């Protein structure tokens, strides 16, 4: 079960990294990210990874940058929680 606070923190990180503006608040746990958010281009993906590393003090491996991790807000949150557990 994804922690609500992780979701909220992730929304603000995504919002700032991708300059989503008001759309940040519309993100839900099942909101699709990769391939669905036009702001999520290659720079966006890398910037989000970098922001996650900084904010959560984790180290993301190359293999973990995948379609599965970035499928939805929920999958990203699960990934972060697993890395910070």
């Amino acid at each position, binding site marked *: 079960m994804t922690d609500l606070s992780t979701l909220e923190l992730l929304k603000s990180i995504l919002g700032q990294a991708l300059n989503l503006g008001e759309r940040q608040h519309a993100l839900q746990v099942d909101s699709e990210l990769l391939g669905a958010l*036009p702001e999520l281009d290659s720079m966006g993906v890398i*910037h989000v990874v970098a922001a996650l590393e900084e904010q959560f003090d984790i180290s993301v491996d190359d293999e973990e940058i995948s379609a599965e991790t970035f499928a939805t807000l929920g999958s990203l949150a699960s990934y972060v929680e697993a890395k910070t557990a």
Partner: protein
Amino acid sequence: MPAAPACSPAWPFFLPAAEGTGARFCIYHAPRSGAGAGQVVSIAAGAAEIAASLNADIVPAITPATFVAVDSSSSDSASIHGEVPCRGALVMVHAFAEEMNRSRRMFAMQARALADAGFAVLLMDLYGCGDSSGDFGQARWDIWLADLVLARQWLALRTGMPVGFLGLRLGASLALQAAVQDPQPAGMVGPLILWQPVPRGDTYLTQFLRLQQAAYLLSTAGTEVALPGSAPAGEGEQATTLASARPDGEGSAALRKRLLAGQCVEVSGYLLAPALAASIDALNMATVAIPHNPIYWLDIAVDESTPIAAARQRSIESLERAGARLRFRQVRGPAFWASQEIAEAPALLAATLELLGNAP
């Protein structure tokens, strides 16, 4: 009806650089008076001739009437007929690769705001970047440092003022090193404004190399996202054909191996040479030489009160322990150097001006 400006607000020109490296595309913003009474650029006495020889045929728009020669015995820059005297001078140091392109608007806005506040500003495209000579694959860290030394000299001759740097991201690292490499006498030391500095070059290089992997990821996701030089998304047969044109999904580790083996790697349309990669990899704020200049570290975050990330905090503390005169400020705003849509961070512009205004 508002009056037209007396001169153009910014002067583009090409500045000849070190032997064999061609010229650098520059834009100079002279300090402006708010009333639009015309632009006054002060030049230290004796330097006018040198400046003229440097700029012969380069800035034809600047006529002698727009210069006010400063008496060498006077410590004031021009303050005649209510025009804003030159308060200081800054060289703006752009970010690396695509971050440079995405931050152009912010740089232009900051340059104009600084000029309106009475600062002389020089923007320069570094070697291999923007409209300057050289291909990106030929760029080297040492050439970039030499470019900044040249820029500082040019602006110092033009204004007679202490020249500082405003660097964004990797540009901040360059600015710090340029200040150390080219130290100025007391009284002529300008401020170093660092926008979202990069704490560690190895982390930064990994992020840059991962762009290749991210591009591959996106090309295999549901929606085709246009990449530089790629064809638009197709259907059926066309999509199959596109598969062979997709970038390889090499991870950062694989690309690092190739760089170590002496191979250039192409990432996001940028050809990265092993020597430049090695220079970036070696950067570390924790071990950097400390310049005498006052340092203003500005971060842009989700909110002003967002806790500073551990790695950034460590870098700041390292600098302070090593004796840097450092002030930190965090403002709220988008990561404009990374966002796809051109983004603005007005709070950053305001904070920068405020810090410069209160500079000793």
